[in-house]
């Protein structure tokens, strides 16, 4: 079924972080702990889904020449809504994320899906795609966060799992660690996808 295909697409095949490699800035910056990863993923999914649905509903009304400013206003509005609600109801989380919540407005994923997909299909497909991409993004950055949190602090989701004898590799939660973990994971994804493609060919 088309809707299911649209949904699953963003989770694996066209995973925004590991396959298309967009929306990276937030993936590197807030993935210092698994909690942050999940929170960021949910915030982005909310903005992505709402924007995609609205843009899809308005796709026949918005003239092509002004479509980018219109998309941008829609996306910026939902981003601000998330920003305000997080500030009011989840202040601790909001303080950790810093400017990366407002930066959702320039997260390449949102604008890219609006331009490439949501503006061309009906709202149901747009929702499926947005949810899939959002989920794909969320699991990807949560994975990165888990790795960085374990290596960098010996705990995951705030629970200490490695004993006191473990000296944390602080570099994992510093910028270089983010880049390197990212690079390795992208490489791994390539390897896995290549292997499944090869075995599908019967090689």
């Amino acid at each position, binding site marked *: 079924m088309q809707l299911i295909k649209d949904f699953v697409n963003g989770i694996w095949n066209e995973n925004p972080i590991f396959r298309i490699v967009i929306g990276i800035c937030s993936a590197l910056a807030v993935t210092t702990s698994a909690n942050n990863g999940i929170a960021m993923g949910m915030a982005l999914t909310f903005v992505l889904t709402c924007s995609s649905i609205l843009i899809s509903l308005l796709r026949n009304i918005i*003239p092509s020449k002004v479509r980018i400013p219109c998309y941008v206003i829609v996306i910026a509005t939902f981003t*601000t809504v998330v920003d305000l609600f997080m500030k009011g109801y989840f202040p601790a989380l909001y303080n950790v994320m810093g400017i990366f919540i407002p930066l959702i407005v320039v997260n390449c994923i949102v604008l890219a899906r609006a331009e490439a997909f949501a503006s061309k299909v009906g709202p149901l497909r747009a929702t499926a795609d947005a949810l899939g991409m959002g989920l794909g993004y969320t699991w990807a950055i949560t994975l990165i966060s888990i790795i960085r949190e374990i290596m960098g602090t010996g705990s995951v989701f705030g629970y200490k799992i490695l004993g006191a004898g473990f000296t944390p590799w602080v570099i994992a939660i510093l910028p270089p660690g983010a880049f390197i973990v990212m690079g390795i994971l992208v490489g791994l994804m390539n390897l896995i996808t290549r292997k499944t493609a090869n075995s599908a060919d019967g090689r």
Partner: protein
Amino acid sequence: MNQYVKMIVVLLVISCASGAVLALSYAVTNPKIQQQELQKLQESVLKVIPGATKMEEVQKDGITVYIGLDDQGNKKGIAFPASGSGFNGVIELMVGYNPTEGKLTGVEVLSMSETPGLGAKITEESFTGQFNGKSVKDQFIVKQDVQAISGATISSTAVTKAIKASLDEIVKLYPVGGDF
């Protein structure tokens, strides 16, 4: 001509709708945000003034301080905000001061965006605790009378300088041994 009119109308309608949604969201969330901030302020004041259960905001010579009171209404100390540029942005603090004894009674980091695992350690008791009971007449220089966090000298120095700068102002208003 028609297409230009359509473009402008669509843009205007979307902008107005956006403005309306945002104004509404703001109206809904702002009271909660203010409440959070007040709560955070109160918690930090009570934390840096031992024995205080209530706080009272006081403006003196254009500077805002918070007097900490206990249940009987006795004054237990003063709290004042301090801020300075750290390694990665502004660090905001709340500092507790007891003029009668001429000592600091506590330091709490309100907000910061220092490096996790290094500068971010300024929020930990192992760093802020050293300011408890510190005489306001001390130098407030890192590596002399203040211990820095290893690997985070810049963050440690930023906190120390911020405290000293505001402290100098506050001591003028509430000298040691004087009334408050």
